[in-house]
Each structure stands twice: as structure tokens, then as C-alpha cells.
């Protein structure tokens, strides 16, 4: 009988929602559905304001034309679409805000969406705990241009960061950029046609693995910069990544640190400590497979160490690299080395003014070119030496990054 069916259906619904409530620990978690169409800006933003902890904001398949930035400031919310090519947020007509979507709350997941043509950064989190970006596409549709936004996926000053199955194309700085954060996993993602593919900066404890970085100017960067609230970046593992054919001419606006990354760089470590690079495939990068360099600009910060130290490079599969290095003096250096640079290059600086910290490396992939510079950037005083390996320091590898279980399971 229809009446009975209705009653049992109702009962099922109630049971399901009660179970959901019990599971999530939130009262009456609900889904707020948004469809494409007129006033998308106001309707999506209203959903992001109305969401309560536990809610899902679901953006139906289709194209959304946005005129301003969007933002979320509610904890425990999932923003999801129908897939990175199905649900597209286009910011081509954006008139304000520094990014497409800004998240400033904790335990937020953004997933299954495409974000296009933001005027500034694509999607950013600031000061967020347990922030997850999953199965996203962030892209500047006109290809690599200096007028594109800086970062595609941009968690900063955040803790417990998960970036999984994300694709970023065309960022005028770094496609995937994690800054001043702690406890970070970047995996199964793809960065193409950005200035830098993936960049971990002033951050602590990062695992970057199973990613592809290709057609960028530089593939994967691990940097530490002075005069920032969080410095002393350390403990990053780069492994099982494919860092191949990074050949897009560097198109970063000058002044930005990535403008100094030579086109055709595979992996670059600048300053930073305890970085382990292993089991990656690094090939077809015309400048170098791996570069370890000091920060060479002037700085006014006594607590900053400009040298890369405690660096391990081992068990990587290095293909052809370094045949046409794109940095000042690179061509002469290559000529000196017999036509091409060795795939791994270290500036060899072991002392920095005001810093007594010992510089240790273990580079077992080679050949290695040690420039033996007496000070950061002192290229004119280089005493280049080529060898099969450099250093044999025993440098303990950081433990695998562990995210809170709920978050770690998200991308499965």
C-alpha cells in the first residue's frame, strides 16, 4: 500500500539522517545544492555563508560565471562539484579579491571542481587546520602568461594540508604552492605550464610524492626565504615524482623569487634543511635535474640561514638533463664540462655569515658538479669540480607525514 511505503520510506530517511548525525557528531548535517545560472556569485556565496559545520555545499555540473572572489569561514564544511571538468567556476570576469576561493576555517575540504582564470590566486587557505584540496583543476585558459594569477592551489600558514589529485596549469608563480605551513601531503597531482610546478616554502614536514611536474620552467622547488613569520623550513621528502621536460620559458614577473629559477630545472632546493630527494624520475630538463643553491639576495634577518643543508639525493632515475643550462654563465660552464652540465649541481657554499650550522649533504646520484663557491652567489669565484658523488653524511630521513585519520582517508 502506498501509505505503508511512504511510512517506511520516511522511517528509512530518519534512520539515515540520525545515523549521519551520530557519525559526524554534528546536528542535522545537510547538503546545500547550488545550480548554475544567473546570480551565481550571490547564490554560491550565500551557500558558503549559510553552511553550518558538517554541511556539504554541492555545486551541480555546469559553468558558473563569477564576478568576485568567494570565501568560506565555517569549520567542517565540504565544497564539492561534479568533477574538475564538469563543475567549472570561471573567474574571467572577476573584479575584485585576491583569489577565486578563500578558505579561512578548519577541517574544510574543497573537491571535484574546476577553477578557471582567477585574477589572483586560484584557491587559497589561510590559517586553516586540516585543509584538503582533492581532485581539483585550477587553470588559466590562455596558457602560460605573466598576467596569470600567481598560485593555483595555495595553502598558507595552515596545518595538516592535503593536496591530492589536483591539476594546475598556467600559474605565473607556482602551480601548487604551500607556504609557511606544517604537516603537508602533496600527492598524485599534476603541474604543467606553470613557472614552478610544485613549491614548498618556509614549511615544515612535507611529503611530496607520486606527482607529475612537466612543461613548467622548474618542476619542484623547496625554498626558505627570510623576513617571514615562519622561517627555518625543514624536513621535506620528495619521492616517486616524475619531473620531466620542464621547458616552458620562465614567465614570472621579475622581483618574485621564482623569476630566478632557470628554465629547465627539475628539482631546486634553496636554503632549507633536511630535504630528501629519492626515487624520482628526473629527465629532459635542460638546465639541471637537481640544483642545491643558497639564497643570494640581500637580507636583514639574523635568524635566517641562506644555505641548503642536510640534503640527501639518492636512488633517483636521472635521464638526459643539463645540456643547455639557462642561467648566467651556464653555457660557459657547460662548455668547460664537455658540452653539458652534470645532472646534479650544488653551489657548494658551506659557510654563511653569522651562521655556525654545519652544512652536510649526501648526493649519491650523479655525476655531481660542485661549484665550491666561497659565499652565496659568488659565481666569479667558482672552482667547479665534477665527481660521481658528493658527501657521505648520515642524515636521518624525516618520518612519513601523518595526517589526522579523517583527513587522510578523504582522497582514497
Amino acid at each position, binding site marked *: 500500500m502506498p501509505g505503508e511505503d511512504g511510512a517506511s520510506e520516511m522511517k528509512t530517511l530518519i534512520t539515515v539522517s540520525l545515523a549521519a548525525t551520530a557519525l559526524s557528531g554534528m546536528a542535522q548535517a545537510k547538503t546545500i545544492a547550488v545550480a548554475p545560472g544567473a546570480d551565481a556569485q550571490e547564490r554560491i556565496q550565500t551557500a558558503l555563508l549559510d553552511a553550518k559545520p558538517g554541511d556539504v555545499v554541492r555545486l551541480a555540473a555546469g559553468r558558473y560565471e563569477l564576478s568576485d572572489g568567494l*570565501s568560506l569561514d565555517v569549520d567542517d564544511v565540504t565544497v564539492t562539484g561534479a568533477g574538475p571538468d564538469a563543475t567549472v567556476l570561471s573567474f574571467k570576469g572577476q573584479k575584485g579579491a585576491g583569489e577565486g576561493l578563500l578558505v579561512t576555517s578548519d577541517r574544510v575540504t574543497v573537491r571535484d571542481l574546476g577553477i578557471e582564470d582567477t585574477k589572483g590566486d586560484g584557491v587559497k587557505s589561510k590559517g586553516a587546520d586540516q585543509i584538503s584540496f582533492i581532485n581539483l583543476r585550477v587553470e588559466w585558459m590562455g596558457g602560460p602568461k605573466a598576467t596569470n594569477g600567481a598560485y593555483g592551489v595555495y595553502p598558507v600558514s595552515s596545518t595538516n594540508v592535503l593536496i591530492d589529485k589536483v591539476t594546475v596549469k598556467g600559474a605565473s608563480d607556482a602551480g601548487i604552492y604551500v607556504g609557511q605551513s606544517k604537516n603537508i601531503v602533496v600527492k598524485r597531482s599534476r603541474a604543467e605550464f606553470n613557472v614552478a610546478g610544485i613549491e614548498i616554502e618556509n614549511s615544515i614536514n612535507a611529503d611530496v610524492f607520486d606527482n607529475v611536474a612537466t612543461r613548467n620552467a622548474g618542476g619542484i622547488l623547496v625554498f626558505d626565504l627570510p623576513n617571514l*613569520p615562519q622561517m627555518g623550513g625543514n624536513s621535506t621528502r620528495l619521492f616517486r615524482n616524475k619531473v620531466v621536460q620542464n621547458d616552458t620559458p620562465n614567465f614570472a614577473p621579475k*622581483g*618574485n623569487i621564482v623569476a630566478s629559477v632557470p628554465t629547465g630545472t627539475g628539482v631546486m632546493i634553496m636554503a632549507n634543511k633536511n630535504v630528501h630527494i629519492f626515487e624520482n624520475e628526473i629527465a629532459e630538463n635542460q638546465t639541471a635535474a637537481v640544483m642545491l643553491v643558497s639564497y643570494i639576495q640581500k637580507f636583514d634577518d639574523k635568524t635566517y640561514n641562506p644555505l641548503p643543508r642536510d640534503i640527501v639525493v639518492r636512488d633517483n632515475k636521472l635521464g638526459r638533463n643539463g645540456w643547455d643550462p639557462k642561467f648566467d654563465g651556464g653555457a660557459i660552464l657547460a662548455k668547460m664540462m664537455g658540452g653539458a652540465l652534470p645532472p646534479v649541481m650544488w653551489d657548494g657554499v658551506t659557510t654563511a655569515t653569522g651562521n655556525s650550522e654545519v652544512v652536510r649533504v649526501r648526493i649519491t646520484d650523479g655525476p655531481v658538479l660542485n661549484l665550491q663557491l666561497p659565499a652565496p652567489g659568488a659565481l666569479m669565484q667558482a672552482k667547479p669540480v665534477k665527481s660521481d658523488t658528493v658527501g657521505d653524511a648520515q642524515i636521518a630521513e624525516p618520518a612519513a607525514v601523518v595526517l589526522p585519520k579523517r583527513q587522510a582517508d578523504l582522497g582514497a
Partner: protein
Amino acid sequence: MLKSLRAGLAGLAALACLGAAPAPPGVALDVLLAEAPAPRLADYRLFKDISGRQPNGLTPYGLNTPLFTDYAEKFRFLYLPPGTKAAYRAEGVLDLPVGATLVKTFAYPADMRRPDEKVRYVETRLLIHKREGWVAQTYVWNADQTEAVLKRAGARLDVSFVDARGQTVQVDYAVPNQNQCKECHQLDKAVTPIGPKARNLNGDFAYADGTENQLAHWTRLGLLTGAPKPAVAPRTARWDDPHEPLEARARAYLDANCAHCHNPRAVASNSGLFLNIEETRHAALGVGKGPVAAGRGSGGLRVGVEPGDPDSSILAYRMASTEPGVMMPELGRSLTHTEGLALIRAYIAGMKTP
């Protein structure tokens, strides 16, 4: 005829009754303190008239150096619940009691050369001190100027005015969404007022019954407790007063226009660029400091501030821009503040290398 005359008389009688009625009800404190925002500005009874021109017992105030918002005029008022007072603090915002509400109407005269005529109200923003903390809301005025309704998700409005030189200016005016209100109005992730700091209130205001220093006026009216004499209280310079020292004016301007984000406890803390008035470290103030996450906002320049050379300073470059992704502040303006930019350029031009 007779009927209409009688109706007219009745109308007059009604008017007479109104005139004799007791004072209109005060501000609806219960509505201010309610968990949900009221749908219409009128629900709070902050104004006596439907057009929001006649404040209902509020105290008007001004700031020595305010935030630039696309040349909008701003009418600011303080509401304090009956029997409560603000407590003086030398640093930061005054200690305002629960129920205190800051009311700010953004408006454009049709012609800036006649600022009191044909003034269009655009939005009225409220910062309400609820029991749980401060909450920001904004109400957008209709074209007839008879009603302002809650707008939580932001909006873009076409505004035009004739500027001081007689040029027509079009503004793509942005009403902020509720999160954007908080982006600027926060310290340590909690919503906070920005303007009513003792030092920025420490100046004269032209009240209906004469001009008086605001700290003195508030104290005299029993709205403020603990304030010292204005002469010994800290004071922010007026950014537009050429008689004040250039550096003080520039630092006041940067504090009001940048430091709500660019300070160590706010949204742009990760930039390492701190423009709050208390900051003294050269690098934190941008001198010789390279960009961090500026992207094309760097304009191809190497440092935030190059002493003596505004053209080489990212700070001036981003202030001059009106391009989203480049311009600073990111929110709250679509036009260049020509006079503010000139001030900052002059300040940088006069700086010596530390």
C-alpha cells in the same frame, strides 16, 4: 468635497496627535543582540526616519585618518546601550560594552563640489558587539532611499559622481560579503572594529552645538570613562593635513588603509609586510624586502619600498593599480586614491636608506 475636507481635517488631527506623542522608541537593543541579523536596517531603529538621515540618539564621530573607499563619504555613529560606557585604552580599539554598535553609512553626493546636496546613500554597515563577540553586517539602500535591506553575500553597484575637478567618475562599487567584512575586521581570527582607537578619535568634530575634541566630548557626555586629557592621549596624524609631518601622515595613512590586514595578527600576516603604526623594523615595513606571494602584483619590481625611489617600490605600484590581483587593498576600492598615492610616493621619495 465636504467628505474630502473632513478627511483632510482628520489627517491634520492625526498629525497633531503625533506631534504630541511621547518621544519615539529608542534603538532596538534586543534586535541588535538577537542571534540572527534583522532583514532591514529599520528594524534596529538606529534612525528616526526611513531614509536613515536622522540618527536616533547616536553619537556621530570621525577619524583623523580613515580608510579610503572609492571616494565615498562616510557617516559614522556610535550607539551605546543605556547606562553603559566605553572604557579608554591607549592602545588599540576602545573597550566597548556588549550592545555597542558602530554604524557607518557610505554615501555619494552627486557632485563632490556640493557635498551636502543630492547625497545618495549606498550602504550602511553595522558592527554589533553581541554577547559572543563582534558581528559585521551590511544593509544596501534602495534607489528611492526609503529602505536598506540586509546583503550578506556582497553586491556590485553602479555609482557615479562628479569629482572635485568637475569630472564624472564611474565607480563599480563593491558591497563586501560577510566574510570580506571579517577579512579586514579581524585580529587573531576574531571580528573587531578598526576605527575607534583613542589615537584616531583624538581630534575635533563639528557637532551640531559646536566643535569639540571627540575624546573630551564623549567623556563629557558620559560615553567614555578613563580617558586622559586629549593633549596627553596618543594621536594619529591627519593624513591630509599638510601642516603635520610627512612621515606621520604617511604612517597614519598606511595604518588606516593597509594595517588591518598587514599586521602580525591579521589576514596578511604571512606576507611579513607589517604596516601598522607600531612597526619599527625596516624590513617589516617593506624597505629592501622582496615580494613573497605577490605574483604579478610585484610589477617586476624587486622590493616593497626602495627609499628615495617610489617608482621602484611595489607598495606604490600596487596602490596605483586598479587591476584585481594587483591592486592593494584587495577589497574596498576600484579607483586609485590619487591623493593618498601622492602622499605615499612623497614619503618614499623622502626616505633615506637605513
